[in-house]
């Protein structure tokens, strides 16, 4: 049976290690503020990868259908055609003006027919693709841009920051209702396209704090060992 102090020290090591492990995850937020650095947008080649403006969050759903929030914008299209976060959570958005928030996905018919090409997320949050067309009057072939929907963004009021679930997923605090809009709608800045949010974890600081956690655990272990040795000596004297 480990002593509570040892368990606490081991937990600190695990938490620090998790911060380090998430240092390269897009949009990751640290558990400890002492390793936080401002995030930045790095260029990426993936047309589905976008970086969210400062203070804004993408709106997603968890496994139970509850809303979660993330800054991880390295999206992909899932097997069901839905726009998903790196962790597989569906990304919410609107399919038209005034429409309710719903998971964004490519139209089933165009996916079944293999017509969705050049799928990308645009600066205004549009999930768009191009498809080939034929004008029946002229028989001319061309392409058209199709917008499947527009990604939603959320912003929390001051003091109402969301609670951390893990490095990239957050949940709203009970009673706090975020403002929901869309990129470049006048209330939110545009997304950085073909970009990747570097996250807010400084890898060097994280490793330093992890090392310190290990040192703290080693010191605790040495203290325990010394304490045990002292007790043994006393027992030997008493015998």
């Amino acid at each position, binding site marked *: 049976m480990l002593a509570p102090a040892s368990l606490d020290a081991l937990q600190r090591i695990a938490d620090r290690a998790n911060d380090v492990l998430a240092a390269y995850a897009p949009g990751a937020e640290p558990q400890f503020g002492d390793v936080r650095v401002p995030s930045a947008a790095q260029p990426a080649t993936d047309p589905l990868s976008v970086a969210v403006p400062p203070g804004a969050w993408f709106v997603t759903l968890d496994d139970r259908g509850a809303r979660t929030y993330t800054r991880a914008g390295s999206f992909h299209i899932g097997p069901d055609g839905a726009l998903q976060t790196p962790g597989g959570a569906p990304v919410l958005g609107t399919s038209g003006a005034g429409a309710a928030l719903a998971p964004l996905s490519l139209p*089933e*018919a165009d*996916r079944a*027919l293999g017509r969705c*090409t050049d*799928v990308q997320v645009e600066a205004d949050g549009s999930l768009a693709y191009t498809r080939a067309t*034929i004008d*029946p009057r002229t028989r001319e072939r061309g392409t058209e841009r199709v917008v499947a929907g527009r990604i939603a963004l959320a912003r929390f009021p001051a003091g109402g920051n969301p609670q951390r679930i893990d490095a990239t997923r957050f949940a709203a605090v009970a009673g706090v209702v975020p403002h929901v809009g869309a990129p470049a709608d006048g209330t939110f800045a545009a997304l950085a396209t073909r970009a990747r949010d570097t996250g807010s974890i400084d890898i060097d600081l994280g490793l330093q704090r992890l090392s310190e956690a290990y040192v703290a655990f080693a010191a605790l272990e040495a203290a325990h060992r010394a304490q045990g040795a002292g007790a043994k000596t006393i027992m030997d004297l008493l015998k």
Partner: protein
Amino acid sequence: MIATLAFGAARGRVREARFVPRAGVPIDAACVVASGVREALRALLGEPCALTIGEPVALDGAAWNRLTRDALVFAVPGRATDVAFVLGAGDARRLLQAAFGEDPGGGGGAWSALETGALERIVARCAVACDALCVERRGPPMLVEAALLPRPAAYFDVRIAAPLALTIGVGVLRELPEAPPALTLGPAVLAGLRAELRVVLGRGALPAARLLDLRQGSVVPLRTKVAGEGELNLAGQRIAFGTCGVRNGHAAFEVGSIAMRGDAP
């Protein structure tokens, strides 16, 4: 199976090439069907209709199941092929609302007999141009279970952009027969034309050196008699065999048999 070369999504600067089955639907026929849909919707909605179509594709069973899931499928029986019109539930609802002048939105749930009947009549109007595929329609469109239909041999979608956005899928349920030859001119059209005919009176053989020395006045020996068998040619094509001779004081050719069209002389 006839395949065509297709390209997948771009990965960087490279697109993956692959062969896919080619749909056996002439693009002209698909355009005629789309034009029929345009005119039907223009008459129904009272506004010009803007639409395009997607390239006809050959479907596999999985794609057909995905396309018809939650969709209304109307089958149009025909002589050359049956045709299926596929309307997504949302599109069908919007089309009905527009046809009845209702505000878009709302609705849902099970379809009433009135609604399906109205949709069948709308599809019947759209199906007027199906003769381009069916050759001859053999009944009105009927709402059917997609599972009861065979997988289409070809499929294309008619995408209406205005006055309301919706997509109507068109499935060609049987392979179309080989396209007939291009339109030919009938005898009645050609009857007034004059054609220049030539008769080959005889045949012979010459050494190449003699052929090169041919001059005006040269004599060419023939292996056949001039008054014997001959050929009737039109535009370099042999059209008849017969006998050369004299009739009523005129040189003449008596047709013995008609040659097959296109025989080289």
